[in-house]
């Protein structure tokens, strides 16, 4: 049985040490044996629980209030997307992708289209590349804002939730004016986008990019130096860089542990190497660092958005490739060849040559891998999604071991999981 003494900060009247940092103290007064030789207790969190961010169920084995063992049970949202994909055309899979991570749908749309384009050897147009970069960075902010609001509410700060959701509402409106949908965007197509950006969209985005930092500053005023926030987050759920790599963690969770692994720098796609931004890296790998990393990542994403808007080139948004792109509506109505072409692309679907591709992008949660295998037909032999949340969550049992029950909520929130993608 564990004899770990749980160090936990009592924050009701925070005391500062000589170095200015709050003093941590053990839960039990000194002299009392921390190990309780009682029966272990089993506790369920979820599947219907607001703090599990979806239908996640954690079964905890507790000794008093200390977690001895945590077993996540997943699959409650399993919708068999990968199997469904094998019965869909290449383009028909796109609506499935944004239902996986409904917190950052455009990243999933783009990642899937990019994987298929890579397999087919299609190079999208310059304008399309920049538009997709804008989409992906916008949704990174979109997802981080939700994470920030819900994590704050899990820990007990309600105001932040209202502020971030007000900002998310503006991104929803941007989604809506571009794609017609607020969550299930389905914005990409193989070889381009469903449509070009509408008139005035960039100026709305400009307005958003200019005003978001104010909200972020306000949130930081509330949280970053707040003793309650620090007490609930600092030194909680520590995972070292080596462990995090071994558990396959990626994204902000890995970077908070001090490993500068960011696909936008390590395996750049869409000219990310030409954008000027920093990879945000933490030091301690605790919940507080994960918070700081995500806060700074939003600011870096704003920088990228700024540069992308400045360089957005004119020109066509779709590639000029009859294998994948439909002819214009006027041509399809007026010209026999175009009509036949339109008919064939719609009825038979895009045909991908035999081959395979494993392509990954840096999503808001981590490395999002899309693996597509084709046998030359219009449907995939296999479509696999490497969901970052799925693998990040598998490290949760290790991270919560020996912590208090209340820290499980903090640690689980700090991982930023989305169950739609874990269960697929």
């Amino acid at each position: 049985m564990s004899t770990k003494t749980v160090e936990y900060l009592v924050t009701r009247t925070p005391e500062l040490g000589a170095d200015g940092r709050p003093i941590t103290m053990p839960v039990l007064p000194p002299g009392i044996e921390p190990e309780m030789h009682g029966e272990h207790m089993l506790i369920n969190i979820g599947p219907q629980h607001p703090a599990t961010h979806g239908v996640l169920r954690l079964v905890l084995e507790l000794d008093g209030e200390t977690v001895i063992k945590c077993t996540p049970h997943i699959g409650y949202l399993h919708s068999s997307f990968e199997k469904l994909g094998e019965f869909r055309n290449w383009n028909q899979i796109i609506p499935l992708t944004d239902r996986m991570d409904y917190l950052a749908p455009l990243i999933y749309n783009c990642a899937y289209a990019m994987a298929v384009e890579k397999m087919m050897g299609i190079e999208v147009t310059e304008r399309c590349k920049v538009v997709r970069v804008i989409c992906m960075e916008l949704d990174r902010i979109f997802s981080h804002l939700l994470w920030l609001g819900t994590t704050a509410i899990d820990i007990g700060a309600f105001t932040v939730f209202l502020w971030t959701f007000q900002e998310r509402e503006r991104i929803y409106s941007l989604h809506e004016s571009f794609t017609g949908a607020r969550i299930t965007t389905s914005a990409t197509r193989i070889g381009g986008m469903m449509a070009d950006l509408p008139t005035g969209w960039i100026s709305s985005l400009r307005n958003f990019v200019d005003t978001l930092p104010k909200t972020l500053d306000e949130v930081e005023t509330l949280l970053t130096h707040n003793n309650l926030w620090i007490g609930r987050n600092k030194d909680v759920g520590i995972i070292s860089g080596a462990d995090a790599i071994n558990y396959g963690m990626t994204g902000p969770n890995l970077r908070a542990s001090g490993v500068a692994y960011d696909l936008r720098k390590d395996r750049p796609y869409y000219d990310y190497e030409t954008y000027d931004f920093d990879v945000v890296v933490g030091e301690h790998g605790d919940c507080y660092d994960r918070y700081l990393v995500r806060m700074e990542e939003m600011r870096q994403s704003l920088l990228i958005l700024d540069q992308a808007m400045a360089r957005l080139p004119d020109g066509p948004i779709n590639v000029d490739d009859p294998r994948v792109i439909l002819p214009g509506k006027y041509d399809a109505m007026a010209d026999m060849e175009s009509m036949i072409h339109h008919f064939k692309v719609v009825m038979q679907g895009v045909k991908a040559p035999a081959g395979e591709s494993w392509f990954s992008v840096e999503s808001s949660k981590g490395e999002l891998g899309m693996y597509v295998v084709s046998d030359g037909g219009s449907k995939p032999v296999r479509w696999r999604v490497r969901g970052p949340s799925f693998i990040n969550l598998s490290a949760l049992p290790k991270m919560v071991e020996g912590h208090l029950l209340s820290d499980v909520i903090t640690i689980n929130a700090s991982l930023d999981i989305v169950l739609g993608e874990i269960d697929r």
Partner: protein
Amino acid sequence: MADKNFDEALSGLETGAAEEQGAETPRGEAADEASHPSVPALRARFGDAILHHTVFSGDEHVIYVGTERSKEILGWLAADPAQRYDLLVDLTAVDYGGGRPLEVLYQLWSTTHKRQLRVKSTVVLKDLETDSVVDIWNSADWLERETFDMFGINFRGHPDLRRILMPDNYAEGHPLRKDFPLRGRFSRAEQTRRALSMQVEDYYTPDELHVGGASSSNATAQPNAAATAEAARHHEGTPSRPNNAENWSPGTEGSAAAAGSGATV
């Protein structure tokens, strides 16, 4: 249960698709081995155990290895200082259908050398087994469970090989196999009946039931021999602990409440 379709479905579950003679999975053309630094090193170290090397989609290097030495080769790739593939990004399988062997796929990334490599090994339908790599990378734990759940590949040496996305007592087989119909093997009525007849114990692992104090007789729908034996041993050691409502008595109220309600908290 006497449903004809149901029986047919079950027999299909046993046999699987008919195996074609000599069928092979597509492998791609052989590529220049010097174009990826790990491939010549692998060839020098393992020789003929490296069956094939190919490149997909321009820059994706794939090597094929035999199942019997796959763990040894992957362990070397993870540990050798010149390779150091320390991040197992993905582990999954591909079923090409038609009775062809399944491919198990390991997507690796080296954070030190900033290189990626894909390793594939094939397992035939008759013998869906390969070595687990959990003791090399912890991330393989859930990925192997998912591959087992979806394809039925048995990973030898995995510490806790259970279904992960489907329920533990799911009886229709492995969904991502090509011989699995899109809507499942059983009829809608049978699927609903099974969903409604789930017991509380079905939602817990044997270990959890043990901690929660459920009796060993109804511990699992599909009893796990080792866990049941261990649970029995545990109960012998603590005879005063009642297991269910039947042997509840007022004198043991405190522990009865803890034991009886433990599994349903």
